[in-house]
């Protein structure tokens, strides 16, 4: 027998051993199942680790949302204040110029009436818009709070189920229940807990619907306020033009 044949045989045996190795690993499944009880803490600890890690990430995301919302509100309030001051000053300048242009008592009275009408309309519009924005803000806050509460409840339910499943597995192991049965019972419990969490979360997502009601109501109110304001302004324009005979 030459060297090539020997090498070929050895190589073939090695490959064949590797081919059958997975089969051998399946044959040791029972051994692995038996170790479920002896190493239960070690085996289940990665789940606890993931739960803690992902809960931590959820908290971080919530903080990010809160910070982002506060930043948006602050920027918006600052811009609102800045612009309204500019508009208020400009209105005063417009009134002053019109008053300077009024030469007769009737014209002066018309300008005074114009000023009163406009300020009243501006105030009404601002109040409606501010109220709507405030209502939206409250609705967002409430939605976030309600969601947080509901999600926390779902998380706690999941964690409680997880603890119960683990304690039962440990108790079963101590009681001498077959390790494979213990493991399968644990898996079934965890799957049920996971499915419940998913269905809970699906229900939580529907909570966003309450905001939609507020949004629709307030949008309508703001649109009406702006439309009313425009109507008032056009009438004031016409009255003042009549006074000035333009």
């Amino acid at each position, binding site marked *: 027998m030459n060297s090539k044949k020997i090498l070929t045989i050895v*190589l073939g045996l*090695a490959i064949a*051993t590797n081919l059958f*190795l997975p089969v*051998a690993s399946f044959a*040791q499944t029972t051994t*692995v199942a038996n170790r479920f009880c002896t*190493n239960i803490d070690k085996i289940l600890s*990665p789940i606890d680790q*993931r739960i803690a*890690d*992902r*809960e931590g*990430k*959820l908290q971080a*995301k919530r903080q*990010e*949302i809160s910070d*982002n*919302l506060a930043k*948006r*509100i602050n920027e*918006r309030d600052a*811009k609102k204040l*800045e*612009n309204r001051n*500019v*508009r208020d000053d*400009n*209105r005063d*300048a*417009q009134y002053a110029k019109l008053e300077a242009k009024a030469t007769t008592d009737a014209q002066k009275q018309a300008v005074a009436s114009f000023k009163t009408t*406009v300020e009243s309309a*501006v105030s009404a*519009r*601002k109040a409606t*818009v501010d109220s*709507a924005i405030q209502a*939206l803000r409250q609705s*967002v806050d409430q939605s976030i709070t309600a*969601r947080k509460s509901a999600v926390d409840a779902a998380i706690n339910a*999941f964690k409680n189920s997880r603890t119960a499943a683990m304690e039962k597995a440990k108790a079963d192991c101590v009681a001498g229940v077959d390790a494979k049965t213990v*493991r399968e019972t644990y*898996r079934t419990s*965890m*799957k049920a*807990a*996971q499915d419940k*969490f*998913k269905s809970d979360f699906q229900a939580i*997502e529907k909570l*966003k619907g309450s*905001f939609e009601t507020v*949004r629709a109501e307030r949008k309508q109110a*703001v649109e009406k306020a702006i439309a009313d304001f*425009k109507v008032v*302004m*056009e009438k004031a*324009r016409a009255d*003042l033009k009549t006074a000035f005979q333009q």
Partner: protein
Amino acid sequence: MPGNDITSPDFKESKPYMNNHNDKKKEEIIEKVLQYLESGKTPAEIFGLFPKYQEELKEILSTYNLLKEESKKIVPTKESFQQIIDKINVSVTNELNPRYSYMEEVQGRPSLEKINNITKIFNLMNINWKIWAPVGIVAVVALVIIGSSQLGTKSPQAPITDSGQAQEQPIAVSQDLPKVAVAEPATGNVDDAVNAILASVSDDEALFADAIKDSELIAADNQSINNFGQSYYENEF
């Protein structure tokens, strides 16, 4: 055997009675001579290798050189080659230029140099096989041993890494704040005054639109919650 060496002086004498056999040997000699010519040996060197066939080889080489020279003249002119192609009824290609390539050397059989290179590669492969086969076997056996030892000591566990976790994206809700208000100049004109006051409407519209967008933040933790729900891997054990 010395009698089988074609360069041996007593080659012909060793088997004078086998005419067919001698003819075959002569062919081999001629073949060898042609190889030597291609490899660059001079005729004098070649004659030295076959002293008994010197006269015959001179004639053969003379004929060979004559044919070689004449073969160069056999190549048709470009025009005549074009005529030949034009007479062929089958259109192979639309290429206008003739396909004949005028080369300095007409390619014939593979040169001895090429054959030698192929032989070297073949030898190298044989050597590599002899080296790599034992190395490969050792590697496979090592894998078998390692695999067997791990199978007996370690229980399969789910990876601790967050591979089942979807990537979370940063919050990105746009905010279209109202533009900086520009004070319209007061002219005393009624229309200018009213239009300046009406311009403030756009500020409130922008503020309200942005406030609505805040609602997009309510569900901005969706991915985090979904990831939490995947903390348990169903096929973990």
